[in-house]
């Protein structure tokens, strides 16, 4: 139970070194008490306010005690309390503006801060250690299917001996064990078996005893362990005399030699550390994969370290490449595993950052528009203040403070919402990752809390302040500019000189364009969710029970499996699951049993293929879905073949490269032509070189199966149902999906499935046992999340656009009351007056829609390139309907000002003119 990270970060920044522990202790004590008494959400909000108050007090204490001349000058120049009071009064006086501004800024901050937090966490993780950004991981990639290869003991030993650009090189692996005290409670803990060098990389000293030492790694030495703070508190009641205690860790009896400080879970989310004892004499004997970590040497870049690792790999493979598609690299530790270059990752990160900045700019521009309208309405007051001697700087400061107060209120609301959004997304993420990954350790590392980091809060604060400056100072400078005195003279006669210029037109046009582009994306995501709900399985999916089967509870083995390592022959997952299938099929209540690589309706891998042309056919490349099935799968699912034949036992024995395609494949890829006997191969996007195409394995199509569901949609867009089925490989990577057709309710069979599996092979792990029609759950949840985000973005953009249009037209009407009065007095046609007044709004709406269509076109092109999305006739019809409605809604915002314009009484308008 820790207070939000950014509160502690904030206090660390302002407190003197000797005050830090004291202040953080206070905050933690109060936070825990509030959590217990008033719940977590209230505790987070109150702790935030407390931390801000305490930071302010600490800062002012240092600030007032300082003799620095710059600070003295700043003390003289700071705005008065009255300015802030006036700012608060303005919030009450213009409630409409306050609500629109607060909602929009708060939304921008919520979205931006959450986005930034996760991007930073996954791409530039901030390990809470000294020079944590210099900690790296050494990895090998198989680029052919973008997966990490397992790192063996041999790899580790060779890398450690060969690398000079990194300092300490260490290795670890993760296991889950029971930790049992002789005279106390027991618990399941995540254990890091790690080398002393890997432990040292964190450079964090224990609070009690010692850490792991090299001498602990010697085979046959005393077994020792280091406890995490939480484990020490929960299982040992924070006993200060714990050092030297003997405990049972799994099958090993070990002595506690140290306790680590709070919030330390290096390298991921570990509770306990034990020495890793590798068989250096026989490295090939090591069964499980390692993770290798290191610290970059002084002045060494990631690129240099990667180059050196590549050279070491070449040397290990006799001067050649380790394999055509294998690449070793050095990446920042904790980063989401992606085989991208640093430049590509930086592009990704700064792209996300730019979205945040662009969103804030857009929102601030809108608030600026509204503030400008408000400032214009106060032109007389400002001019009078100037006449009474207020300097331009003083007036600008006051107007800036007013916008700052507005932005600060919005930012506070936004940060609280962002905190809640972080908790929501972390929960959703954990749920989704638990659904899609086989690891039973935390998917989030120890340094990634569910709260906002201090850096994000500061970043949001800076942007808010800049936004407030932009929204407050620009209108203020414009109003207090050189034309102030002539306007002061006109103010006396009720005339005004301010106008909305090209800048404001651009702001409104951009907002309309964003509304036009975002709303269809939101609708698209919603349609995607509906599509997932209505997945046409093509067979009675609800009659089948499914289970994901992997082997061995050991996390490292599971991770190996995830990375594609196969188990030794005879004990392979393939053999074990086949035996399980055979045993289950003996049960008379089981009608059929089969195994699948992916469940119908659940996400499938998508790969580019090339169907080899026959005669003068042009090369045919397409992205299709890929799955693997057993030789009896289609029969078990009750799905018939449309043409050709099903897989049979001989296909596996002969090892022929044969595939079956579905009906959509024939329709979309082959244009309805016969598929039987055609050959295809996998290729890169857009196709490889001719030579490469020749060397790639060729697969012969032996049959066409009736269409059953593969993925119907990604979270972004619907996907085509064209698919290929391979025969399930004997080296299949975990997990394999076991599918049972029972004569009873499938859910009621789950306990028997568990029991049969346990009897047959206790190392088999069965997860996510459920009826097959629930296989779309994870995708649906992800799609819903995406829909929520896009819809909220579209709704806020729409509110902003309409508020902007309303502000401009209202402003125009109020400025032109006299003109309208004169025209009405002279007998002008009301339609001409409406046209004259609203010509500008019409132009803006027209330009906005044009820009939005272009933007939408760009998005759709990106969807096409990345997800293979194609605009269907139905979608086009909906889009045109939407584009027809947008101008009507936009012009709806003009109705109130228009009514006001037409009700202007000539006599009153001319009387006001004096």
């Amino acid at each position, binding site marked *: 139970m820790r207070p939000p990270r950014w509160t502690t970060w904030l206090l660390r920044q302002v407190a003197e070194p000797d005050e830090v522990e004291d202040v953080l202790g*206070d905050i933690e004590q109060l936070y825990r008490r509030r959590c217990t008494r008033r719940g977590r959400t209230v505790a987070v909000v109150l702790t935030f306010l407390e931390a801000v108050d*305490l930071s302010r*007090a600490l800062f002012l204490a240092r600030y007032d005690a300082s003799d620095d001349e710059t600070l003295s000058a700043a003390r003289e120049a700071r705005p008065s309390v009255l300015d802030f009071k006036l700012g608060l009064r303005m919030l009450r006086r213009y409630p409409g503006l306050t609500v629109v501004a607060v909602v929009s800024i708060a939304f921008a901050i919520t979205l931006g801060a959450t986005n930034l937090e996760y991007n930073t966490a996954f791409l530039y993780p901030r390990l809470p250690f000294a020079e944590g950004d210099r900690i790296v991981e050494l990895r090998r990639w198989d680029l052919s299917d973008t997966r990490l290869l397992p790192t063996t003991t041999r790899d580790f030993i060779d890398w450690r001996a060969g690398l000079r650009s990194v300092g300490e090189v260490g290795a670890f692996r993760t296991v889950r064990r029971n930790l049992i005290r002789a005279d106390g409670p027991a618990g399941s803990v995540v254990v890091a078996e790690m080398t002393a060098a890997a432990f040292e990389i964190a450079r964090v000293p224990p609070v009690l005893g010692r850490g792991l030492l090299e001498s602990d790694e010697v085979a046959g030495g005393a077994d020792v362990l280091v406890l995490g703070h939480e484990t020490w508190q929960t299982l040992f009641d924070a006993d200060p005399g714990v050092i030297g205690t003997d405990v049972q860790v799994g099958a090993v009896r070990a002595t506690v030699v140290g306790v680590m400080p709070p919030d330390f879970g290096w390298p991921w989310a570990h509770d306990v550390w034990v020495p890793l004892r590798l068989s250096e004499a026989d490295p090939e004997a090591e069964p499980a994969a390692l993770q290798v970590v290191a610290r970059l040497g002084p002045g060494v870049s990631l690129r240099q370290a990667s180059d050196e690792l590549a050279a070491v790999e070449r040397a290990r493979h006799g001067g050649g490449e380790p394999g055509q598609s294998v690449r070793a690299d050095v990446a920042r530790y904790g980063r989401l595993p992606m085989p991208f270059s640093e430049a590509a990752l930086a592009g990704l990160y700064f792209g996300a950052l730019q979205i945040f900045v662009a969103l804030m700019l857009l929102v601030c521009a809108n608030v600026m528009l509204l503030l400008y309208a408000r400032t214009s309405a106060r032109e007389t007051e400002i001019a009078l203040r100037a006449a009474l001697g207020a300097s331009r700087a003083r007036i600008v400061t006051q107007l800036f403070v007013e916008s700052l107060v507005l932005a600060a209120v919005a930012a506070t609301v936004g940060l609280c919402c962002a905190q809640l959004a972080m908790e929501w997304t972390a929960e959703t993420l954990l749920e989704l990752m638990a659904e899609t990954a086989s690891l039973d350790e935390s998917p989030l590392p120890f340094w990634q809390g569910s709260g906002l980091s201090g850096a994000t809060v500061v970043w949001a604060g800076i942007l808010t302040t800049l936004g407030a400056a932009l929204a407050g100072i620009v209108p203020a400078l414009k109003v207090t500019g050189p034309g102030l005195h002539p306007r002061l003279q006109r103010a006396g006669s009720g005339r005004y000189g301010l106008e909305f210029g090209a800048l404001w037109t651009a702001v409104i046009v951009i907002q309309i364009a964003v509304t036009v582009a975002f709303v269809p994306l939101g609708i698209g995501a919603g349609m995607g969710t509906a599509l997932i709900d209505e997945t046409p399985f093509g067979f009675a999916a609800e009659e089948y029970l499914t289970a994901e089967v992997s082997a061995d509870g050991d996390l490292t083995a599971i991770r190996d499996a995830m990375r594609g390592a196969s188990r030794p022959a005879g004990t392979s997952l393939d053999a074990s699951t086949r035996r399980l299938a055979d045993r289950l099929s003996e049960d008379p209540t089981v009608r059929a049993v089969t195994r699948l690589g992916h469940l119908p309706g659940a996400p499938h891998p998508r790969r580019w293929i090339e169907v080899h042309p026959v005669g003068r056919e042009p090369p045919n490349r397409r992205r299709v879905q890929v799955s693997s099935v057993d030789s009896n799968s289609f029969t078990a699912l009750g799905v018939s073949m449309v043409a050709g034949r099903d897989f049979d036992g001989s296909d596996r024995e002969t090892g022929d490269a044969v595939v079956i395609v579905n009906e959509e494949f024939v329709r979309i890829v082959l244009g309805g032509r016969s598929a039987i006997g055609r050959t295809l191969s996998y290729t890169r996007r857009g196709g490889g070189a001719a030579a490469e195409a020749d060397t790639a394995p060729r697969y012969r199509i032996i049959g066409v199966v009736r269409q059953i569901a593969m993925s119907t949609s990604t979270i972004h867009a619907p996907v085509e149902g064209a698919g290929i089925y391979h025969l399930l490989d004997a080296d299949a990577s975990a997990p394999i999906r076991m599918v049972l057709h029972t004569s009873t309710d499938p859910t009621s069979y789950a306990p028997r499935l568990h029991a049969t599996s346990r009897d047959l092979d206790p190392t088999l792990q069965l997860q996510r046992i459920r009826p097959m029609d629930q296989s779309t759950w994870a995708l649906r949840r992800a799609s819903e999340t995406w829909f929520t985000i896009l819809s909220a973005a579209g709704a806020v953009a729409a509110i902003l656009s309409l508020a902007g249009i309303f502000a401009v037209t209202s402003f125009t009407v109020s400025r032109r009351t006299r003109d309208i009065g004169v025209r009405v007095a002279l007998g002008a046609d009301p339609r001409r007056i409406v046209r004259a007044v609203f010509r500008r709004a019409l132009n803006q709406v027209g330009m906005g829609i044009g820009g939005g269509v272009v933007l939408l076109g760009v998005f759709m092109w990106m969807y096409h390139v990345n997800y293979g999305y194609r605009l269907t006739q139905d979608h086009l019809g909906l889009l045109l309907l939407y584009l027809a409605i947008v101008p009507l809604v936009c012009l709806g915002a003009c109705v109130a000002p228009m009514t006001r314009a037409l009700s202007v009484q000539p006599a009153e308008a001319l009387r006001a003119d004096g």
Partner: protein
Amino acid sequence: MSTRSLADFELLVMLAAIRLGGDAAYTVSIGDEISTRTGRPVRRANVFTALQRLERKGLITTRLGERLPERGGRPPRLVTVTTQGLLAVRTTTGAIQAMMDDLDLVEDVG
């Protein structure tokens, strides 16, 4: 040596510290004590800065206590009132008492 007198909030902090004693008086407990006894909400920031001010004036001294689990294993900074601090409390309360002598507040307010 002239004895300092204390401001309103400083006096409350000093009295709370005296009540709690040197082994239990620190920012959170002092704030709690004042809230409980006076019924007024107390901002920890004010307690913190008041303690800093009082320490600068030499009216209290501070030291780190034992690590407490409810503080995430962090030690509180315990407050001890110095002799000079006790004198300041006595002077301030004496002044208040002197000003209140012979005043019938109930009658005056009524």
